[in-house]
């Protein structure tokens, strides 16, 4: 088992003919992901890497049975693409696009309410269940199948952690970048609840950063209701307030979102907080190996 994504997942890539979409479609196929369709409005009927391209997600679902979508659509059109996927019956959407206006995401979240769909991202590397499938842009080679779940608000920081885990002999069940925007589809808690029920996952590494209160909320949930060991890392301990540190959501504002507050909340919940990124792999072996 793993969560959300496995060998049976049938993936449609929205924006398959764009530069990023094309490159990563090849990578996903090379990893063994079953990419059954692509969507680019106006290019329906074409083939890309032997993947049929459709004009709409609806057609991709009806003709190819796609149930997972990976979105590479540019920011002005991404909210529309998410809603299109959800309305077509896609059950898992990974939106890689960075730069979606936050008020567009407000609309998207209202739209998704009540629908049976999980949105990962936006502004994220996607999701990978090592050895089974990857939907997103992470380098597949650094992952190894195993029993650690990884949740993160960042991309390359996640690769760093996963690389250390793998080199320390700890494989991963599923790794998910939840996204660096102020509003993301799935919170740490939404996904922890899935890891809780996944027998393959023995423990979780949670990678947070400054901005918002997602880590504090996760800490409360873990303390109350998450029985597996968790290690946390928070990026941005040296970040100044009021500055946006690359990610749209990584900003200390109104006295909220400080790294120290998050670290304190996590520690108070009994979670191992790793302060030095350089040795997180070793710590993971100690706690979960």
């Amino acid at each position: 088992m793993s969560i959300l994504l496995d060998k049976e997942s049938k993936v449609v890539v929205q924006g398959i003919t764009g530069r990023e979409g094309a490159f990563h479609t090849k990578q996903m196929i090379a990893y063994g992901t079953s990419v059954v369709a692509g969507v680019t409005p106006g290019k329906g009927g074409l083939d890309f890497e032997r993947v049929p391209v459709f004009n709409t997600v609806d057609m991709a679902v009806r003709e190819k049975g796609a149930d997972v979508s990976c979105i590479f659509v540019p920011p002005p059109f991404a909210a529309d693409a998410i809603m299109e996927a959800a309305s077509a019956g896609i059950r898992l959407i990974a939106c890689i696009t960075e730069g979606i206006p936050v008020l567009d995401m407000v609309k998207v979240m209202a739209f998704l309410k009540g629908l049976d769909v999980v949105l990962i991202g936006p502004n994220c590397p996607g999701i990978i269940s090592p050895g089974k499938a990857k939907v997103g842009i992470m380098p597949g080679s650094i992952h190894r199948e195993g029993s650690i779940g990884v949740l993160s608000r960042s991309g390359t920081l996640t690769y760093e952690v996963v690389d250390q885990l793998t080199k320390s002999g700890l494989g991963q069940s599923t790794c998910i970048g939840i996204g660096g925007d102020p509003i993301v589809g799935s919170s740490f808690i939404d996904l922890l609840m899935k890891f809780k029920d996944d027998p393959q996952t023995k423990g979780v590494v949670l990678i947070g950063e400054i901005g918002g209160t997602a880590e504090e909320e996760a800490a409360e949930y873990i303390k109350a209701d998450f029985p597996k060991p968790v290690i946390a890392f928070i990026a941005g301990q040296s970040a100044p307030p009021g500055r946006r540190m690359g990610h749209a959501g990584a900003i200390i504002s109104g006295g909220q979102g400080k790294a120290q507050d998050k670290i304190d909340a996590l520690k108070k919940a009994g979670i191992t907080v790793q302060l030095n990124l350089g040795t997180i792999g070793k710590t993971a072996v100690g706690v979960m190996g």
Partner: protein
Amino acid sequence: MKLHEYQAKDVFRKYGIPVPNGQIIASSDQTSRAIQTIQGPPWVIKAQIHAGGRGKAGGVKLAHNPYEAVTAVESMLGKKIVTRQTGADGVTVNQVLLEEGLDIERELYLSMVVDRAGRIPSMIFSQAGGMDIEEVAARTPQRIFKERVDPASGWMPYNGRNLVYRLDPLPSPNALKGLLSVMDGLCRLFSALDCSLVEINPLIVTRDGRVVALDAKMTIDDNALFRQREMLELDDPREKDPLEQMAEKYNLNYIRLGGNIGAMVNGAGLAMATMDVIKMAGAEPANFLDVGGGANEEMITKGFEIILKDRRVKAILINIFGGILRCDVLSRGVVAAAAKTSIRVPLIVRLEGTNVDEGREILRKSDLKFLVAKDLSEAAELVARQVS
């Protein structure tokens, strides 16, 4: 993107939110005209800078006669002002706003933000106007009232009533009407202009029962600027660090900090974590630089040039975890930058991920002098040793 107070107040006017009459002054010879045009004395003279905390730093002055007005303008215009948000260097005041002084009966607080946890815009209202709202929220949270805006319906009259009828004592019927209208206007402009924050502190009730926005803070969502061209034109580059401006031009995420270790990293999270590691090793980062997941050779070159331009930098750490950005691309960019500028400080390189061997080979074959770190911990220690 932040707006100046006077720019935000121009926007307020368009959305029916009353603001004091005022005039912008960019050179001191415009003062006499301003005091002839604007009713007074008293007048209020306010430095137009993006940083908060100007009131306590001499950036807001009351003038009771024309002489005081001229003196107040001259004390600010062209001068540096240091507030708790500017850093020790301060910022230069390029413009001041001269406004009519109003007779204040009551000071309130009103703002609108996107509530991240609720994933919805929300309006925040408080009786504790004119104070540091963060402090009010921390000490007396019961004095802060919130109302979430349903994205389907938008701001409804009941939302406003839920807020204003919590005031104690209740203001006059006229003032109540004024408050409801300001809230409605605020919500409309917030969504129409893709704001991430609009704050009116204080929102005042005058002795004659008018509701007026005495101050205005407004931030536009950077991600929405592609469809907010009119707002984009209000951008004031003078408020930004020159190196940050240069970085912006090349689509690099660069923030100048106080230390002396320059850092170049791919990805925002890893860049933050690298700063943290530098600090933990006993040194101070000079900057945050995220060259992005999809950086090309030119962006790397420019990023490296920006770091080299910062005179305080005593050592440079390059930390790349190659994913989409391949290590060979990174190496070529660094070598190209080094060919243009002489590197006068030690360079520590830590490469990992896609095409790492090719990347290392390119660096080795160049005549660049650098130290290789095998992992992140070693990289930070090496860097710290260079400056200790």
